[in-house]
């Protein structure tokens, strides 16, 4: 079990402190809203990397689990009046179970086929969400979620804490023996099977964890937006997360998370000329795809650490 090395821990705590200071400087909902959205994206990208980064099985339907978590929390709140706090606890269980169920039939598929299967799975979920509108509110989604007690800054601190803890936990998982085994599985499953590893169990459990964290992020996002809408199940969201992971560098968890944070902030900054936003995304992806799996964030961080040492 390897733990964070010193520099990593110091810098990440400094980043946490910086983010924690924001509500002291401004209590403007718009700024807090952007940061909450960015943190949610960081959780989603980190959770995507947990499975896809480590095992190389690229999941093109991550929005299915994000949406499931958001809708679970929203439904409990709007239909049964169950406080959002419980929703944030239940959502990962719902998404995690869904992850295992979808993982069972699809995880034995190779690269492109797994990507296609997950893409289609989330497309089916999106269509069902629109068709079964009596339950899901159709294109209007589930709105009118009662916000949690306390101010927007209190909610911001909740999201920040959960976000930081989740990403740290996923990073520890990636550094742990389990992370090593997953990397081995990603490299050659047959060798792992012969090394007494129950490859299928590992993949499905990891997919369940990845989905659970995505659902957690989904619930936090619904808690900020106070609505769960079909665009949380869209393939556009899944692709955006894949772009963030590619930019961040796959298999490092913190790479995609940091990339997600910055990209979400940049996207909000680009709000001025909204029309060009997706075009910019497409161009970023065209460039990033030429790089190896390591993306920008991780190599840059290693280079920086090298210079500092």
């Amino acid at each position, binding site marked *: *079990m390897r733990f964070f090395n010193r520099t990593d821990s110091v810098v990440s705590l400094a980043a946490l402190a910086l983010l924690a200071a924001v509500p002291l400087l401004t209590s403007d909902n718009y700024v807090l809203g952007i940061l909450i959205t960015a943190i949610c994206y960081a959780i989603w990208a980190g959770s995507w990397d947990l499975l896809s980064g480590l095992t190389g099985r690229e999941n093109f339907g991550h929005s299915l689990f994000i949406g499931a978590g958001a809708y679970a929390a929203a439904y409990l709140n709007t239909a049964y009046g169950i406080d959002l706090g419980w929703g944030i606890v239940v959502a990962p269980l719902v998404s995690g179970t869904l992850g295992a169920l979808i993982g069972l039939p699809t995880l034995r598929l190779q690269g492109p086929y797994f990507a296609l299967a997950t893409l289609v799975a989330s497309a089916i979920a999106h269509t069902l969400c629109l068709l079964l509108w009596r339950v899901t509110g159709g294109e209007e989604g589930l709105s009118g979620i009662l916000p949690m007690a306390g101010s927007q800054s209190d909610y911001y601190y909740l999201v920040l804490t959960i976000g930081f803890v989740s990403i740290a936990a996923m990073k520890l998982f990636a550094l742990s*023996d*389990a992370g*090593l*085994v997953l*990397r*081995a599985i*990603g*490299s*050659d499953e*047959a*060798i*792992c*099977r*012969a*090394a*007494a*590893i*129950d*490859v299928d169990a590992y993949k499905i459990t990891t997919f369940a964890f990845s989905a659970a964290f995505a659902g957690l992020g989904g619930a936090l996002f619904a808690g900020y937006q106070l609505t769960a809408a079909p665009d949380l199940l869209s393939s556009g969201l899944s692709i955006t997360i894949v772009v963030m992971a590619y930019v961040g560098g796959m*298999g490092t968890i913190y790479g995609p998370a940091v990339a997600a944070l910055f990209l979400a902030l940049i996207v909000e900054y680009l709000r001025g000329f909204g029309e060009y936003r997706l075009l910019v995304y497409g161009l970023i992806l065209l460039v990033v795809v030429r790089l190896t799996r390591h993306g920008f964030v991780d190599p840059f961080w290693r280079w920086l650490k090298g210079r500092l040492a």
Partner: protein
Amino acid sequence: MTDPILRAVGLTRAFGGIKAVSDVSIAVRTGSITGILGPNGAGKTTFFNLLTGFTKTGAGEVYLQQERITNLPPHLLARRGLVRTFQLAKPLAGLTVEETVLLPALRVGAGQDRRQARERAAYLLDRVGLAAKAEATSESLTYGDLRRLEIARALMLRPKLLLLDEPFAGLGAGEIETVSQLIHEIRDREEVTVLIIEHKLREFFKLVETVIVMVAGEVVAEGTPAEVVKHPKVLSAYLGERAYEH
């Protein structure tokens, strides 16, 4: 004759009408080094995959020390001591040599504490002559190193029966000698029964005590290398006069 460590009874598997393995029954003596010989396409690899749970059997049973293990998944067989290696020795990307050997011990429920596992890994790496490269990434190893690394990882599981799939494939003469020597030592000092598929004759005949010859999915001969060589079916199907002489 002590009970055989591994028995296959009437093993059969067909792919789209063609019987890759048809009604093969063998018994592997405990503590022996047994070899399976046969021309390409004789069904050796399919037979090997049937034994190790990588391919589902069409018919027939497999017993490991009297326990029926037919169609058990590979990881359960590995935990029962039936461990195999692969024809194409591939490095595990992103893992160091030591981590590759440690892999079996890293899984949840492996039940070995870290210190003990690392000690055994160091011992095994030394046995296979890779101690110096413990920290290197496995992608940087030569093909010969990868072969020995694979054997070290297999030994990490303290196997009862080690199934080697063409261990000499892709090796130079010198390396074949070292690997062959290593297999002998394992059998003697680690009390491991060894079953090998190979078609590199000279080393193979020096190494194995009993040979099972398969041709077109069927066992055509069994016995010591000397007996097997004289068997008419083997000569006509596989060796031919000249090949065997020199």
